[in-house]
């Protein structure tokens, strides 16, 4: 019965004859190379570059600091940058101190016991180390810190305070954001070259994004400057700094894109002001359909 079905199918050519020789001949080097050479070079480059956003998404990483990157000394809460950390609970960023203060409760009455307790809940994290020395070290604590020097309280729900920092407050997504913007530009440029997107729309999209970048960076920058000048320190400082950096990435990459789109006026700056002469002869094949 089986043989009958098989012979019928092969006679009717419903099942292709997938012999090993046929497959290997189809996938032979000559065939593949001929197929690849048929694809235009530009299309290959764009296909390769369109993978950038995916690489970018996979390259998000974290890093840690041990000293103040701004070289500040005794930076008070909430700190100059999102790396603010106060494990010791002395009100100053540990990175800005040469030797961060650690608070150890030594005022217990029972010298025989030594226990370490760590408790964590949704809103606060407190670490208490009890060494049972009883030497009265707490007498040196300043009045501001005398309430509870053993407790380090982190802001409620760090995630909301640091924007999309995943609660760590230390990440700037420089490379991923840059690559996503470049990928986006290559995509719209490809659409424009293919005639799907009009030149004006292509320009308008990137001019709008550049404006958003400049406005975002400018507004957050001015707010931060005012905050520093007036000595305003809020928990929002870190998230404003974060968005300042992210918007600045959009602004910087957007400016380079703006230069690419307006390459001719950019060259004119040097021609008009300094009398530079550029080679105006262009390859006629390249002149077709450029956005410059």
């Amino acid at each position, binding site marked *: 019965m089986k043989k009958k079905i098989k012979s019928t199918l092969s006679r009717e050519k419903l099942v292709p004859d997938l012999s090993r020789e046929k497959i290997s001949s189809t996938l032979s080097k000559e065939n593949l190379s001929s197929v690849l050479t048929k694809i235009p070079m530009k299309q290959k480059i764009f296909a390769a570059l369109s993978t950038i956003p995916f690489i970018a998404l996979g390259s998000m990483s974290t*890093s*840690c*600091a*041990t*000293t*103040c*990157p*701004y*070289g*500040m000394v005794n930076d008070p809460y909430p700190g100059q*940058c999102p*790396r603010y950390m106060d494990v010791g609970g002395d009100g100053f960023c540990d990175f800005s101190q040469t030797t961060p203060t650690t608070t150890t409760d030594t005022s217990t009455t029972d010298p025989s016991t030594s226990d370490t307790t760590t408790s964590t809940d949704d809103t606060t994290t407190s670490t208490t180390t009890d060494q049972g020395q009883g030497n009265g070290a707490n007498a040196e604590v300043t009045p501001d810190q005398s309430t509870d020097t053993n407790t380090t309280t982190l802001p409620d729900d760090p995630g909301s305070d640091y924007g999309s920092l995943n609660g760590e407050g230390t990440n*700037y997504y*420089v490379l991923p954001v840059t690559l996503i913007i470049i990928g986006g530009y290559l995509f719209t440029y490809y659409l424009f070259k293919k005639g799907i997107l009009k030149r*004006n729309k292509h320009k*308008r999209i990137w*001019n*709008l994004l550049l*404006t958003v970048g*400049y406005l975002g*960076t*400018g507004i957050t*920058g*001015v707010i931060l*400057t005012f905050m*520093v*000048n007036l000595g305003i320190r809020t928990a929002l400082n870190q998230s404003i700094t974060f968005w300042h*950096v992210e918007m*600045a990435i959009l*602004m*910087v990459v957007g*400016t380079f894109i703006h230069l690419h789109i307006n390459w001719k*006026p*950019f060259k*004119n*700056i040097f021609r*008009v*002001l300094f009398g530079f002469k550029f080679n105006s002869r262009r390859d006629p094949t390249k002149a077709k359909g450029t956005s410059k």
Partner: protein
Amino acid sequence: MVYDMILPAIPFIGGYLLTYSLYRLKLIRKAVHINIWNLIIGLAFLISAGAGFVLLLIMEFNVKLPISPELLYWHVELGITLALVTVFHFHTYWKSAKTMLVAAKRRRSEA
């Protein structure tokens, strides 16, 4: 550290008014006026963004440089200049800016 916000802006406001009046009085060509300010915005961008980028790298890779506070200071000062010159840039290219904000078709229908 206190940042000056008015002082660095004054020479640029004065400079823009000067070149703009010279252009309006037809003492210089429009291209010269535009290109001077394009060059200034380019330089302000290069210095401010460059300093910002170096600061970012310093922070990401945890490198401590003795010039960090100075770099931060000039990043802020040139950033203020950049924001101001961006307003001038919008003024220079106001027609293109309007096209960007309001679609050409809509403007034509409104007219």
